[in-house]
């Protein structure tokens, strides 16, 4: 009996040591899983980032798509995993839009920021034959005609919808506009076909038509012009007053992840983001590489969350 107890104590002690030992070893010891929340460009960038990060880590970073429900499904999955650094999420402002829209019971504080990687800047486009060169042209025309502006963006509560509403508010067009929700990729076509007056989407969807001279990108919603479209003015230049609306993407881990693991991932992410390949992809896919470490990223997330919550509250989009 006594022997049995001693044996089991010895065994559990040995097991405890055995279990602790790997934690002291260098992170990462097994593949890191990167949850991807959306399809299309978000997925493409995420897959590329994972591949580039793998080159700077002893273990691969494996991109795993967990799409659906505006990102809620993926956020919930990562939220439920152990905070050991082996589960990270390729996140974006969607953490704020989904939470305030009532899709998720927890907010950004459930995650520890790892690094900011890139930003995407929405652009607003009109048909080239509309005669509108600036936002002010458009606003003046709509007001004098006394009709409603039909503007296409993604679904209600999505980031492009929020950006659209912000522009409309700046132009004092909030009450004389109709938001037509489109899933990704269809708004430019509807604009070309003349069923919409304007569309707000990611510039990649407009660029080819812009160059071909069928559509005109009026402006981008960031504070400064973007490298992909150096000739396109910002919305502030185009008549929307002060405006800085960008969507960031980055990496986050469940809150409580050890700082060493975060530092290691941050370093790999920095090397990946600064690589030539990533910059080239940014040009063709249409995003800006904008790396920031975990501290600056955390501040950005918190600041953006307040802004998004305010905006959604004004538009009556928050779930109370």
């Amino acid at each position, binding site marked *: 009996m006594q022997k049995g107890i001693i044996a089991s104590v010895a065994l559990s002690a040995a097991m405890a040591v055995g279990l602790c030992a790997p934690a002291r070893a260098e992170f990462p010891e097994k593949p890191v899983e990167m949850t991807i929340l959306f399809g299309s*460009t978000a997925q493409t960038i995420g897959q*590329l980032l994972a591949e580039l990060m793998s080159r700077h880590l002893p273990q691969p970073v494996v991109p795993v798509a967990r799409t*659906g429900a505006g990102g809620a499904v993926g956020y*919930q999955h990562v939220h439920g995993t152990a905070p050991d650094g082996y589960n990270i999420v390729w996140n974006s402002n969607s953490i704020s839009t989904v939470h305030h829209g009532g899709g998720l019971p927890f907010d950004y504080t459930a995650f520890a920021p790892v690094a900011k990687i890139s930003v995407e800047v929405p652009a607003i486009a009109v048909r080239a034959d509309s005669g509108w060169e600036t936002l002010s042209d458009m606003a003046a025309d709509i007001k004098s005609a006394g009709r*409603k502006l039909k503007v296409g963006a993604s679904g209600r509560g999505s980031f492009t919808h929020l950006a659209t509403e912000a522009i409309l508010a700046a132009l004092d067009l909030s009450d004389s506009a109709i938001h037509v929700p489109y899933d990704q990729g269809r708004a430019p*076509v509807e604009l070309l076909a003349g069923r919409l007056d304007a569309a707000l989407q990611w510039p990649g969807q407009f660029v080819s*038509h812009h160059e071909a001279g069928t559509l005109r990108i009026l402006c981008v919603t960031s504070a400064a012009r973007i490298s992909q479209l150096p000739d396109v003015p910002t919305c502030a230049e185009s008549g929307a007053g002060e405006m800085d609306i960008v969507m960031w993407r980055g990496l986050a881990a469940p809150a409580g992840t050890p700082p060493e693991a975060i530092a290691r991932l941050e370093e790999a992410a920095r090397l990946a983001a600064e690589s030539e390949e990533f910059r080239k992809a940014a040009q063709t896919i249409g995003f800006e590489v904008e790396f920031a470490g975990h501290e600056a990223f955390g501040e950005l997330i918190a600041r953006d969350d307040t802004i998004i919550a305010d905006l959604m509250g004004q538009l009556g989009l928050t779930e109370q």
Partner: protein
Amino acid sequence: MDLLLAAAQVALAPAALVAVLAGCLLGVVFGAIPGLTFTVAMALVVPMSFSMETAPAIGLLLGTYIGGMTGGSVSAILLGIPGTPSAAATVLDGYQLTRRGKASLALGTAVVASAFGGIVSLIIMVVSVDMVARLALRFGPAETFGLLVFGLSTICGLAQKSLIKGLIAGVLGLMVMTIGIDEMEGAQRLTFGTVVLQQGVSLLVAMIALFAVPHVIDAFVQHYAGERKPQEVADVRAELPSIRDILRDFWLMLRCALLGTGIGAIPGTGGPIAAFLAYAHARKSSKRPERFGKGEMAGVVAPETANNAVTGGAMIPLLSLGIPGDPATAILLSGLLIHGLIPGPMLFIQNPGEIYQIYLAIIVAYVAVVAIQLLGIRFFVQVLRVPAHLLAVAVIVMCAYGAFAIRNSVFDVVSVAVLGGMAYGLMRVGIPLTPIILGLVLGPAIERDFRTAMILSEGDPSVFVASVPGAVFLGLAALVVGAQLLRSIRATLSARRTEEKRRASVTPSE
């Protein structure tokens, strides 16, 4: 011409050819295995294509796409389980042909029809990409809604014995797809406050559940209840169709190829709709419509031609406007983007060489697919020698894996089990499953286009009949439904009359 030759040099280089071949093989295998779909195959090859040269990368992706589209017919014909949603219409007659011992003949015909549809759509794309793209632009939400309603009306033809049961099935399909987040308003529907239900039921998951699970349960029930079925599939000879067999349906193939290309060119439609419309068309234009559903070869030819013609059709808006028409072309789009090819009007001006490479890769892919499939038929049909209950075990494992792989979600595996169990119950009470899949495919698109059209018209419903295509399609749909209603009413009346007559003739003798 120089450009074409230069493109040929790149697209027909060994590395590119191997990539196309590998893609086709992978696509056919994923398409052919029930549960695994080619969307999963494409998601697997995209990261691989990142580090490849442009031509092999395009070839790999296109090969997977095309191989998967044709591979879906293999399990549809052999097992009655479509490998992709586009092959759901092929099950109707293809599986019956297998039960009559004509599996290899049906497989051979299907692959030839597929290649024919694909090549015809490619030719149309090359010749008239601009014109078709401009026509497709005129298909707005209201017109697309009309087309989709017309597609939904083919439920009448699929309902087999009872129109009511067909309608019940169709509505069930429409209802299942309302679960989850409504993308337009962001509202949660039927989620019961949970996050997992917000993702809704994936079309692929529902398809696996509807077709595969009832088969599996049926196989087990029959095995353990000791019901010895008469050997259904005695003949597993690999018999290939003769040229004459194929030429007999030439005009049907041509019509279905045109139909498939047209539908493929309209964003937001896709393979399943084209296949069902083609099937309905084949039956309507046939001299012996009563044989459809019992193993008519034209019932395989029509949907297979049409769903492959969609591949060429879908390339039109993808390349010329930069809009992906379905999940598979969306993956293709990201593959092109990473290699610096931005689809849209400028692609034809800035990268004409790459455009030719794409055309050539499609041709090579179809040649490869025909070769792979014709060689593979003798192996595929061996599956029929495996006892049904053992095959069922393999199928259920693949289905669980396939359902999980779509979006790495355990919820989807559970959905397959739950929906599959329900599907088995529906099958036992005689509710046909095919209209359900039609409801699943068309439901979200119909709802989206209806609502978008109403928003655009500021609530004026006349928008649906304001344009010629919209009015024509809605009119056709009304015609189909009206004719079917009349027929079923007449059938009930005449049945009642014969009943009365019989009674009348019986009474005097009593």
